[in-house]
């Protein structure tokens, strides 16, 4: 089960993910990212501090949008990822493709650079 909420603040689109992202709930994450894209958001910050587990289907959601984000100049930064989830990102090599920061401030700052 996952809970996903979104919020707009100072031109930055925040997506907060809580719970577990598996094959079933990955659709909600996908929808949240698509919505942001459709709304023309250029700066997206995802708060994953409440994310306990992410399955390969959930990782696939991030991967599937990478090209499109690059094409549309959309910047995405993640923060607050716990160690277990971070390890999954690392093993897969996904940490090299995404901007992953420790704190919200760092994540916002990374977008400005």
């Amino acid at each position, binding site marked *: 089960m996952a809970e996903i909420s979104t919020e707009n603040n100072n031109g930055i689109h925040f997506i907060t993910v809580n719970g577990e992202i598996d*094959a079933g709930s990955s659709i909600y994450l996908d929808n949240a990212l698509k919505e942001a894209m459709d709304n023309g958001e250029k700066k997206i910050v995802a708060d994953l501090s409440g994310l306990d587990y992410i399955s*390969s*289907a959930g990782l696939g959601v991030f991967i*599937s949008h*990478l090209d499109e984000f690059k094409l549309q100049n959309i910047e995405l930064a993640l923060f607050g990822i716990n160690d277990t989830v971070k390890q999954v990102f690392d*093993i*897969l090599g996904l940490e*090299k*493709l995404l901007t992953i920061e420790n704190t919200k401030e760092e994540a916002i700052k990374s977008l400005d650079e």
Partner: protein
Amino acid sequence: MSDKVKIRLSFLGAIICWLLFTGASIYLLLVQSYDMKVDFSNFFPQLCFTGFVLSTFAYYRYIITKADSLNFTDLLWKVFITGLITTLISLAIQLFFSIFARTTLVESPLTINFFYNILVGLVVIFMVSTLVVWKRLILYQKSKNLLKLWSFFEIALVASLLFDFWGIQFGEPYFQLALVVLGLFSIILVFNLKWVAYLNFKQKWKGILFILLSGIYLYHFLLKLSWFVATDMVIMNLLDRVFILGLFAFLFLYAVISILVTLFNLPTSSVFEQKLKEALDFQKLSQSIPRGETKDQTYEILLESSMSAVFADAAWLEVQEDGGITQIIRNLKDEDVDEIKASIKGETIKAILRLALKNEVNPGKLTDDIKHSKFKSIIALPIMVQNNQIGFIVLLNEVSEAFNREMVNIITTFVNQASVSLENLSLIQESIENERYKEQLKIAKNVQKSLLPKELVNNDHLTVSAFSMAADEVGGDYYDILEYRENRFGLIIGDVSGKGTSAAFQMAQMKGIFHSLANQGISPSDFNKKANIALSHCLERSSFITSTYFDINTEENILTFSRAGHCPSLFYCKNKDEVNYLKCDGMGLGMVRNSSYDDYVHSNTVSYHAGDTLLLYTDGITEAKNSDGEQFGDNRLKESFTAHASKAPDQVKEGIKNDLSQFIGGMMIDDDYTLVVVQFKDKKNG
């Protein structure tokens, strides 16, 4: 004794008794006329008469079978025929008397008594056979009490036969009393007329006719007997017998009441027939599917039954299914349908006709009057299957306000029954389909099994043991090994993101890629680079594959590998007796679909010694959870491997599997999971 023997015996008994009865009467006549004082009273003829009555009763009891709803008129027909024959014979006797009127022949007591006795025989036959038929009719749908009452009545009749031995004559108080007792029984019994309800209109008329004629026969016999008695020459006056008079009264009473009740039931018989037809239609509907009839046939039956139940002049039925619309029309033209649709005022009916019914409807709103040149009343009912409206039935009448609530209820039960039948049909079809899918998945499972290597390498350099299990019928885990050159092996473990059928297809692609690339003796880095290109063309954008490719050189005892996002393999070094991860940077296949992927590909080389063991696995192992939601995890796997690594590969595999299943307890692993154990031997050093 079989029934046949009983019938014959009773028949024979009746004839003998009648002959004796006649003989005794004539004997008594002789005694009387010659004044011979050898009087043995009326006892003997009465005895013969009683025997005759009882034998006849026994005979008819056996040959007139029990009444069921089909043969009421047959029973009455029997009464009618018996009456006709006996009456004709009695008329022949009358003819004889009128031909020889005023001759000594017909005035002789002997002749009169002889013919009188024949008449007595005919009367008894007719009355007793009629009694048996009345009995069958009265006891149709009998209750315990009714059965008891009838038994008492029969006993009373036998008692009256015995009573007649005393020779008490009509008019005496005891005679009157006995007659009243029989009369009371008759009055109670004659109102058991349940069978009348089961006659249809035509049968009722027939019944009235037959019973009326039977009554006339009875009256005719009464007249005949009186005529003979009036000659004052008969030895045994039958009209002085309580039995005969009581029976007359009973038979006559039942005939009269039957005629009256049947007559009064005539106007309602069509209603009863209608109800019976509804019940039969209902049965037809409920049985239509088990009988293997199609949906269309069920619709036809529904339409026909509904029309006849509410006397509709026209009707149509529409069902939307499988993309198409089935429409069945009765007594209507296509243009009528559109006209009628346009002339409907009620919102509920409009919704029904649009197939847009959402919730329960008020049955009162299903009927309405319409403004149409021909049809004035309408009933519309939705056909629901699994809470979805799939269609409707419309019934029309040329008279306004022709439909009432009762009719709506009947049609509703019809439609409901049809819906149940249709639902059953779709369930049957669904289960057949499911069965087929299961069969297909079974095939897929077997095909996929054949994609994994059947025999693993087991030679002087290497022993391999592996295990793989899919969460669903098919899965996305893959492992394989091949010797592309002497002493050179390509080894792979792979895990397609997701699970199930789509993962299984991609796993098959991975096998193709492995076999074409590994056979070329490609380096692990190049393998991942080329595999990424190949998969970029065929993987969905959200799918990726993690894998690790190994190149094993058993001549040099070295191991080169490149990790493409897969969980790092564990390596047991026997000399140090410790387990370490084989580390190497890398990225999953299909995550970056251009040449920049190559920048993320790395490889590493390690050398091994005899007894060293390599463990490959997929994340289904480390992510397996126990009932507390805790994962098996990297550390437990590492510990488990450390504990078993020095054993033979098969035992290493079994040991880890045991530890895993002990950890998860009874929980299911919700992912594909795979273990591959490779143990090295040192050929050079033995």
